C-alpha cells in the first residue's frame, strides 16, 4: 500500500480495522523522505533507526493502544522545538550541533498520544522570514513548483506535509509563519489563540506573539492535533486554564450553524487578481451554506506591519541575547576578552535577517527612543485589538485571503525587507491581537499554485473556527495535492 496522501483520520481508521501496522506506515514515510526530500530540502534531521524502533514498539501494542488519538501518526517537527536527544538549530548556525536536553510540552503531549516523530524540519533562522530563504541550512522548495518558495518561516513543516513526507507537522507562528506557508502549499494551517498551547521548549522569538500550531491536509486533522496538545502548562505562565474542548466532536455538531463573516474591503486592496477571485468565490460558498457577509471597519490594521516590526524585533533582541557563545552553540576562536567572545560569536554565528531584527529591536529599546517606538507600537497594538473587538460585535469571523499572492520565486523578494514583510500583511494583526487564525485552501491560481482563505476568530474561538472551516471544506471538496505527494514529479 502507498502512504503519503492519507489524512490522520484515514490512518487511524486503517489501524482500527487492522489494515496496516505502524511500522509499515512509518517505514513508508521514511522512504518517501529519502526518495523525495533531496529536491525539497525540508528535513534537517532524520533518525530512521530510532524512529523505526518506536514504530515497531507500537506494532506490539496495537491491541491496547490503537485507540490513542494519534496512534502511529507520522509527524514532522519544526527545528525550533526541543525534542530530547534531537538537534534543535532553529535554522541557525549559532545553534548548529545543539542537542535538546528535554522535550517541548506540545511535542511530549503528541508523543504520549501515539504520534511518532519522523524528523526535524527546516525553517527560517529563529523563525524570522516569510520564504524559508533565511535558513542557514539552505532554502526549502515548494512541492507545487520547485522554483518557488514554500512560504515561511515554517517552510519545512508545510513542504513536508504537502509532499507526503509526514501526515501532519508542527510549526510556530509569530506573524503568519504557519498560515502563510500553509496557504502557499495548499494545506490547513492553524495559529491558535495566544495562551492556548504551551510554548515551553520552543526557541523563543517574540514572546508576546509566538504560538504553536499544526499543518494538516484537513480541518478534522488540525482539530485532532489541537485537542491533544492544547491546555494549561505549569511551565508556561501565559497558558490559559480554560478547559480544552473536544474539537473533533464539536466540529461535527457545530458545522450546521450559519456564520457571519466580516470583510474589510479597504484592507483587501492590492491583492493579486487570482487570489481576489478565489477569495470572492469562497465567500459565495459561505453564503450558500446560509452564512452572511457583512462589511466591517478595521481602521488600524494598516499599521500592523509597523507595529509588528517594532514589537517583534524588540522582544527578539532580548530573547536572542542568550546566544553568546558561552553555554552552548557556536563559539568564535581566539577571542581576547569576554566582550569580544560575545560579539564575534554572535556576529559570525547569526544570519543576515536575524541581525537586522536584533538591531531594529536594540534601537527601538535604546535610551531616548523607547517612548517614540516601543511604547507607541504597544499603544497602536491596543487599537488594532480594539478594532477586532468591535468587529466581532457584528460578525463571527473576519475573513481575508491568507496571503496577498501565491508562492513567489526564490530570490524574488530577498533584496528588500519591506517587500518580503508585506507577504504577511493579513496575518500579522492576528498575532498582535492574540486571536486564533486558520488558513484553508480555497483554490488554485492560473499557474496551478494554491490560494488560502484566512478565517480569524474570537479569542479561544477555535471550536467555531473549525466548524466553519469544516463546513466550507465539505462544499469545496477534496483539495488536490502536488504530484510529488503521489510519488511523481
Amino acid at each position: 500500500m502507498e502512504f503519503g496522501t492519507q489524512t490522520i483520520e484515514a490512518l487511524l481508521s486503517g489501524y482500527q480495522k487492522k489494515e496496516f501496522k505502524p511500522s509499515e506506515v512509518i517505514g513508508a514515510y521514511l522512504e518517501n523522505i529519502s526518495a523525495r526530500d533531496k529536491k525539497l530540502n525540508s528535513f534537517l534531521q532524520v533518525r530512521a533507526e530510532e524512529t523505526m524502533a518506536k514504530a515497531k514498539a507500537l506494532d506490539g501494542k496495537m491491541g491496547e493502544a490503537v485507540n490513542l488519538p494519534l496512534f502511529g501518526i507520522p509527524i514532522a517537527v519544526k527545528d525550533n522545538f526541543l525534542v530530547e536527544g534531537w538537534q534543535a538549530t532553529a535554522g541557525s548556525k549559532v545553534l548548529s550541533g545543539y542537542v535538546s536536553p528535554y522535550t517541548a510540552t506540545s511535542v511530549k503531549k503528541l508523543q504520549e498520544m501515539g504520534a511518532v516523530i519522523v524528523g526535524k524540519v527546516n525553517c527560517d533562522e529563529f523563525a524570522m522570514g516569510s520564504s524559508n530563504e533565511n535558513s542557514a541550512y539552505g532554502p526549502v522548495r515548494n512541492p507545487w513548483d520547485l522554483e518557488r518558495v514554500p512560504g515561511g518561516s515554517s517552510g519545512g513543516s508545510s513542504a513536508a506535509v504537502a509532499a507526503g513526507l509526514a501526515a501532519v507537522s508542527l510549526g510556530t507562528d509569530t506573524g503568519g509563519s504557519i498560515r502563510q506557508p500553509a496557504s502557499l502549499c495548499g494545506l490547513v494551517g492553524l495559529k491558535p489563540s495566544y495562551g492556548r498551547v504551551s510554548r515551553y521548549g520552543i526557541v523563543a522569538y517574540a514572546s508576546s506573539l509566538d504560538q504553536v500550531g499544526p499543518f494538516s491536509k484537513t480541518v478534522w486533522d488540525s482539530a485532532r492535533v489541537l485537542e491533544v496538545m492544547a491546555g494549561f502548562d505549569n511551565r508556561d505562565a501565559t497558558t490559559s486554564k480554560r478547559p480544552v474542548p473536544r474539537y473533533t466532536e464539536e466540529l461535527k455538531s457545530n458545522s450546521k450553524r450559519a456564520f457571519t463573516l466580516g470583510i474589510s474591503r479597504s484592507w483587501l486592496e492590492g491583492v493579486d487578481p487570482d487570489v481576489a477571485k478565489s477569495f470572492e468565490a469562497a465567500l459565495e460558498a459561505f453564503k450558500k451554506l446560509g452564512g452572511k457577509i457583512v462589511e466591517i471597519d478595521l481602521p488600524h490594521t494598516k499599521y500592523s506591519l509597523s507595529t509588528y516590526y517594532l514589537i517583534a524585533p524588540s522582544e527578539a533582541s532580548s530573547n536572542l541575547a542568550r546566544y553568546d557563545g558561552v553555554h552552548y552553540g557556536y563559539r568564535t576562536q581566539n577571542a581576547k576578552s569576554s566582550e569580544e567572545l560575545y560579539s564575534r560569536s554572535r556576529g559570525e554565528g547569526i544570519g543576515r535577517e536575524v541581525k537586522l531584527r536584533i538591531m531594529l529591536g536594540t534601537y527601538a529599546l535604546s535610551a531616548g527612543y523607547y517612548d517614540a517606538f516601543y511604547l507607541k507600537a504597544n499603544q497602536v497594538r491596543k487599537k488594532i485589538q480594539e478594532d477586532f473587538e468591535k468587529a466581532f460585535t457584528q460578525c463571527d469571523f473576519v475573513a481575508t485571503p491568507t496571503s496577498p499572492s501565491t508562492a513567489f520565486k526564490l530570490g524574488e523578494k530577498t533584496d528588500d525587507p519591506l517587500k518580503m514583510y508585506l507577504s504577511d500583511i493579513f496575518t500579522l494583526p492576528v498575532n498582535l491581537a492574540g486571536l486564533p487564525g486558520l488558513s484553508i485552501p480555497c483554490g488554485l491560481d492560473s499557474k496551478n499554485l494554491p490560494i488560502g482563505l484566512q478565517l480569524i476568530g474570537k479569542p479561544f474561538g477555535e471550536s467555531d473556527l473549525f466548524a466553519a472551516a469544516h463546513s466550507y471544506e465539505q462544499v469545496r471538496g477534496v483539495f488536490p495535492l502536488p504530484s510529488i505527494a503521489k510519488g511523481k514529479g
Partner: protein
Amino acid sequence: MLSRDEVLKIAKLARLTLTEEEIAFYQKQLTRVLGHIQDLNQVPTSNETFVQHVPLDAEPFREDKAEPFANHEGLMGNAPAVENNCFLLPTIVEHS
C-alpha cells in the same frame, strides 16, 4: 539615512561584530525599515492605553520551587568547552 556611527553604536549595544560590508548593508536596511515605521506617528494614542496580551485567566505567579533537572549530561554536553563539570571560557585576565 542612518549614519555609519549610528549603526556601529546599535551593533555595539546588540553585541554584534559587523564586517565593513555589513555596516553599509545595515545602514540601508535599517533606514528603509525605520522610515516605514514612521507611519505610526499618524495614529493618535493616549499614554494610558497599553496592550493586554496575556489571557486574563493565566496565572503568571506560581510557587518558586526548584526541581532537579534530570538530564545534567545533556545540558553540559552542549557547552563549547567544559572542564571539571564547569563551562570553560578563555582567560580574560592575564597573569603578570
